[in-house]
């Protein structure tokens, strides 16, 4: 039972001062085993804050990040799943499923997590899953209007993943759940 937090596009301090208070109260240290961050934090203070939540932190570089040494892409294996991480501004057209699928094949992962569009999406596409956790602070974006703050928490348990989506809509935290299972071959089956 591994809890993985996926978030990104905070744009602190340029576009947003901080995470919403309701999110901050939920994110306490000791619960989460891994954090994967798509990028655009942008400053070191946010990095340090995320480190306090969980020591195992993986970040890829977004175009506004001030730390230049984050990698462009990253892959990691958690339990039975291979996860891929990339900010997403490198993949053109931005947010296009087919192009993201190309990246997924390149990285050879089951679950690809990208950001940049500031909008939560979760798709099953060509044998893999593409998840976009959206923007955790609700920072504005040139390609999305009315951004709601959102992030994703994945509960990886053996061959099964439960994805909890946390969104702040009209000041209230809404939680959604997505369930999926990996078969022994590449394809993912949805229950």
């Amino acid at each position: 039972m591994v809890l993985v937090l996926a978030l990104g596009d905070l744009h602190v301090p340029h576009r947003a001062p901080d995470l919403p208070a309701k999110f901050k109260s939920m994110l306490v240290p000791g619960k989460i085993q891994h954090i994967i961050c798509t990028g655009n934090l942008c400053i070191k203070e946010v990095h340090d804050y995320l480190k306090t939540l969980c020591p195992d932190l993986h970040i890829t570089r977004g175009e506004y990040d001030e730390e230049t040494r984050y990698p462009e892409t990253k892959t990691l294996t958690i339990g039975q799943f291979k996860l891929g991480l990339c900010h997403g501004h490198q993949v053109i057209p931005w947010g296009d499923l087919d192009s993201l699928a190309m990246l997924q094949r390149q990285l050879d992962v089951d679950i690809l997590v990208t950001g940049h569009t500031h909008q939560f999406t979760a798709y099953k596409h060509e044998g893999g899953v593409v998840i976009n956790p959206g923007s955790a602070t609700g920072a504005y974006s040139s390609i999305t209007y009315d951004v709601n703050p959102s992030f994703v928490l994945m509960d990886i348990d053996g061959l099964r993943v439960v994805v909890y989506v946390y969104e702040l809509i009209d000041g209230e935290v809404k939680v959604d759940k997505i369930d999926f299972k990996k078969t022994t071959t590449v394809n993912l089956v949805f229950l």
Partner: protein
Amino acid sequence: MLKGKLKLPVPEKALRVFPDRLGSLVAGFDDKEEDNGGSDVAFEHGEELETFQPNGFKSDRASDDDEKFQEELEVKVRPRPDKDGAGPASVSRVIAADEKRSDLEYELSRPEINLEKLQRIASTGLPDGGRLRAMAWKLLLGYLPPSRDLWEKELTENRKKYANLKEELLQSPSKFTRKDGAFSPDEQHVDRDMDGPLQRQEISQEDHPLSLGKASVWHEYFQHTEIVEQIDRDLQRTHPDMKFFSGDSSFSRKNKEAMRNILILFAKLNPAIRYVQGMNEVLAPIYFVFTTDTDEQNAGNVEADSFSCFVRLLSDSVDHFCQQLDNSAVGILSTLSRFSELLKANDEELWWHLEFTSKVRPQFYAFRWITLLLTQEFNFQVILRIWDSLLGNPFGVQDMLLRVCCAMLLCVKSRLLSGDFVANLKLLQHYPDINIEYLLQVAQDLSPDTSSFRLSL
């Protein structure tokens, strides 16, 4: 067996006659040896056995039910000089031990067990190995009722209860949410094998991992992780010299896993005390005795039995672990003052010396003795022997415990009287090896503290 040491439950006496019928057989005088209880005597017996075989003594042994016992005796003989020259005394001791064993077996095989008789036998020590100690402890703790025909029913009931508890409380939250059938298969059918956006289910009102609600399974789970970590740390430190508990073998890991479950369950069921450091030490002897029980019927249920007996044993002294009750009438401080009174009633000189002259208050040494039931003061075999006496006391474990602690003080009286604060404290916190039978006999003979509400025989 453990460390190659054998323990024969031999009642040894220094110049005094035993109250029970075995006393007349024992004629030897035994010094207070600086060794582990009577274990060296056991090796002598082995030797004696060898010598007396031609006299037809062996045929006696061969008729013994428990062959394993015989095997052990023959295997573990270590050549040692005969400590007491009285040959007949050693033989009679062996015969006495043998008789006690068959006595015990007879007692335990009766349909209606006489608990008083069992207590008396237990106070003189139970035989190691085999199934007798485990059965005796279960009876003395009240886990098994005295009438044999109710055993089956009690055991299955308790074991089932334990299994249910485990399922309910020890599950990880993901498995819990999975069991609820939290998704509807019909809706999702459309998506099967088809690309496209994934179906989402709104669960804002239900449980999720970051939930801070009191009723949330996840929240509870995270609250307990701290306790679980503490339990794990303590289990690593339990009896590091024993292969049974420590090391990386799968056997010791299995044992630690079982003990972990028991302690976590106890912590969850008793939110007032939760887990306190040291409970692992109180659990260890119980779990050990039940695991080494040679009775196959009990083999699969060691965990469940240990849990119930652990709870029963702790129910007496559980108040000692609760910090808020420290100063109350049932807390540890009141027990310590009872202990002081007991010492005063039996040896005022020593009491005065400790309390006032060297200012060694019972809080400094007896706290650990009492809360952990002496598991940290002696080696493992001796602990089992002491617990036989503790459990076999008709007035309860706590009463005997205080007596044994008092006896511990009396047995090192001369050293205490000549020591100051530092020396005495050092002595009492690292209690020296002592002849355990002598110690227990002294404990038995103490005059009870008349200020307590319990009257002696």
